[in-house]
């Protein structure tokens, strides 16, 4: 049972770390987008501090969206995805494993970049830990949604995947920014985190099953 976990884990992590661009480019994209906001809106500290939750969240959303493009394309092209469907393990578990590892590669470094971003955007200190917690839950859900978008638009343009995924990421965005802004005001933010966790809990089985269904379309 743990054999396939080790196999996918080792293979994907090895490939990702051999090609450092896999985990560096989403980070750089995130930081560039963050930098554009003070450039466009002006360096006023109060303004940036009040906008910081939204800016960091939008940049995280876009970065995780764009990094999902390649999750299935390499495996589809070289035939590894075929073996997902042939194997004895339930396909949705294998897909879920791929999504989880992809999150480790792209979503987790985003937390480090978000810490940097919260410094340069003057995010209030009370919001720092809530921001990281909301980003953990939010980027995981974004990875799930992104895998669904990538599977529906396998072989097509990246923008199509973005159009499919972005409307569904709006609840995550709303909840995530609500966590950070309520933490800055000193209010209790646990309710919002719980809603994000609930979305993740419902999403893990439902979205992975639908992703498998969408991937099978390519093998008709």
């Amino acid at each position, binding site marked *: 049972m743990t054999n396939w976990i080790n196999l996918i884990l080792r293979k994907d992590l090895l490939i990702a770390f051999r090609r450092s661009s896999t985990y560096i480019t989403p980070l750089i994209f995130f930081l560039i987008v963050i930098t554009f906001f003070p450039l466009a809106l002006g360096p006023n500290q109060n303004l940036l501090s009040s906008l910081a939750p939204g800016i960091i969240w939008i940049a995280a959303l876009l970065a995780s969206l764009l990094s999902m493009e390649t999750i299935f394309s390499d495996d589809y092209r070289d035939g590894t995805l075929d073996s997902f469907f042939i194997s004895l393990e339930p396909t949705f578990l294998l897909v879920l494993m791929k999504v989880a590892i992809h999150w480790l590669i792209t979503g987790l470094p985003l937390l480090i970049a978000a810490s940097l971003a919260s410094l340069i955007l003057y995010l209030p200190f009370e919001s720092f830990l809530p921001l990281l917690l909301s980003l953990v839950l939010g980027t995981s859900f974004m990875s799930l949604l992104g895998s*669904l978008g990538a599977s*529906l*638009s396998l072989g*097509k*343009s990246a923008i*199509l995947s973005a*159009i*499919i995924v*972005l*409307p*569904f990421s*709006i*609840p995550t965005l709303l909840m995530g920014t609500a966590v950070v802004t309520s933490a800055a005001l000193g209010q209790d933010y646990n309710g919002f985190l719980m809603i994000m966790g609930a979305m993740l809990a419902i999403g893990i089985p*439902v*979205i992975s099953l*639908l992703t498998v*269904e*969408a991937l099978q*379309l390519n093998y*008709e």
Partner: protein
Amino acid sequence: MGSPPLFFNWSSKIVTWLGISAFSFLLLGLYWGLILAPPDYKQGDVFRILYIHVPSAIMGESIFIFMAFCGFINVIWRAKISGMMIKSAAPIGMSFVLLTLLTGSIWGKPTWGTWWVWDARLTSTLILFFIYMALIGLHSTIDDKTKADRAVSILAIVGVAIIPVIKKSVDWWQTLHQPSTFTLTSAPSMSAEMYQPLLLCVIAFYIVFAYLLTLNLRNEVIEREKSKNWVKILLERSK
């Protein structure tokens, strides 16, 4: 009913009758609401846009639920006609949501003083509009149309999650848009002379949707099956 030629033959019998009843119900409902109903005590005559705005909103959401239902059938039972129904219903649904947004803006300017406000119901209706567009875009990108039907079936099933958010958004968040007038458990908060034409308009819009869907579906069926024998015989007969 799942077979395209059977559907085409069945729909040929009902399509004219459907069109006539759609047109007459619509005419009746709109005349009753836009002209005969009494003016509102606060808003005057401007409230009459309600008779287009509310039915369009109901249609936009109902059509998406219909598409999700068809998507469910398509994914599990692979009935071809249910896949084609999604493709035929999507543009109609999108037009209704667009009409809702536009009439809502027109109504909002004189009554709220603004064309747009970022409250829960308006924003979630805008999201519904984006999801419709994503669905239509996804279908047009995939060349193999049976495959495209399955892809949009999946998207419709996922997207139906936004519908309860729209319906409940006015109850969950205290917003500018007024709360629901109709509920299943209590009497409407509108006077009878005002909501009777509204109900007729809603029914009329449903029949209009059925008519437009039938027209679209018939076109879609002919388009998909144009290489088959039964279409060739049909075209020969109609020459």
